[in-house]
């Protein structure tokens, strides 16, 4: 196949090109997931990628691992079952912003609270892309969407703070532009024994970009370049963080993991 070695190794190349629009950030973010798995040299047969419904959730269909495309918002519930049935597997969940925080909001907070060893990656494009550009829980205040013709009056979720507050033990954020940072965060997330939450800011040139006059995909990438700043820099000088989007590693605090705690009880009762 006429593609790079890494694409040939980890993608179902007969399924490509993918369904995403020209310039969609999901393709770039999916590549970061693949590169992170390649860097960690994980056995393909021991990796499971689970997704729900939405643009982002098309990703596992193109990836050559054990993959599962589940119902809307319930990817984490299926993933919890997989992890409990076979704790050796590396379970990675790819969800969208609406899938993770609206339809599957309760699954997200409770999976985080349990601290089960699952790596959750959210492709956040600020909108429901697949269904026609309705506003999602992460559409910024005042921005336009199909169902917010005069501007969105809801306040957006800060997904990383939500996950951290709910009990995730590894939390980070990067963007489709900051692909190498995203790759590094996913690597550390997979290595973390517990619930890891990584938010990848994506771009939707078709709906969010067009509705809000954000320009072409290159301009939307450049927006991330200009307006994102690493949390470490803001910690040193808080003034740098004004009107910026924070990226980088936010929280890394390993705690007792759910499967291990569960095994302790099984061992205790079996004497």
């Amino acid at each position: 196949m006429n593609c790079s070695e890494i694409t040939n190794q980890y993608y179902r190349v007969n399924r490509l090109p993918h369904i995403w629009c020209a310039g969609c950030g999901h393709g770039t973010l999916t590549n970061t997931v693949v590169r992170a798995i390649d860097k960690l040299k994980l056995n393909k047969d021991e990796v499971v990628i689970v997704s729900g419904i939405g643009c982002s959730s098309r990703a596992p269909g193109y990836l050559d691992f054990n993959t599962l495309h589940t119902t809307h918002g319930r990817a984490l519930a299926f993933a919890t079952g997989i992890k409990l049935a076979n704790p050796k597997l590396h379970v990675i969940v790819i969800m969208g912003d609406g899938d993770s925080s609206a339809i599957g909001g309760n699954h997200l907070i409770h999976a985080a609270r349990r601290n089960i060893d699952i790596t959750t990656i959210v492709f956040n494009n600020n909108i429901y892309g697949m269904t026609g550009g309705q506003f999602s829980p992460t559409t910024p205040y005042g921005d336009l969407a199909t169902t917010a013709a005069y501007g969105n009056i809801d306040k957006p979720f800060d997904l990383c703070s939500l996950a951290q507050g709910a009990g995730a033990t590894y939390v980070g954020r990067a963007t489709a532009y900051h692909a190498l940072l995203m790759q590094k965060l996913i690597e550390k997330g997979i290595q973390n024994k517990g619930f890891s939450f990584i938010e990848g800011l994506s771009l939707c040139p078709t709906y969010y970009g067009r509705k809000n006059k954000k320009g072409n995909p290159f301009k939307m990438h450049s927006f991330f370049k200009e307006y994102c700043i690493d949390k470490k820099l803001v910690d040193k000088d808080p003034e740098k963080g004004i009107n910026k989007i924070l990226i980088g590693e936010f929280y890394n605090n390993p705690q007792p993991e759910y499967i291990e705690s569960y095994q302790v009880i099984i061992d205790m009762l079996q004497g």
Partner: protein
Amino acid sequence: MADEKLLLQNIPWCKGCGVCVGFCPTKVLKIKNGKCVIANSDKCIFCGQCELRCPDNAIYIGGKK
């Protein structure tokens, strides 16, 4: 050695979004008839920006590394 590397494309996968064209530091690429084409392959410095940013895996650096 740079001359052992090659900038390669899988044109049927390209959707002509122009991200690689925008990020190419030496202006090797351009959009023609809705697809990305390698216009000045001599200028390529194999920085890998296009491969890193292409959402469609349609451009990559091949050859000997």
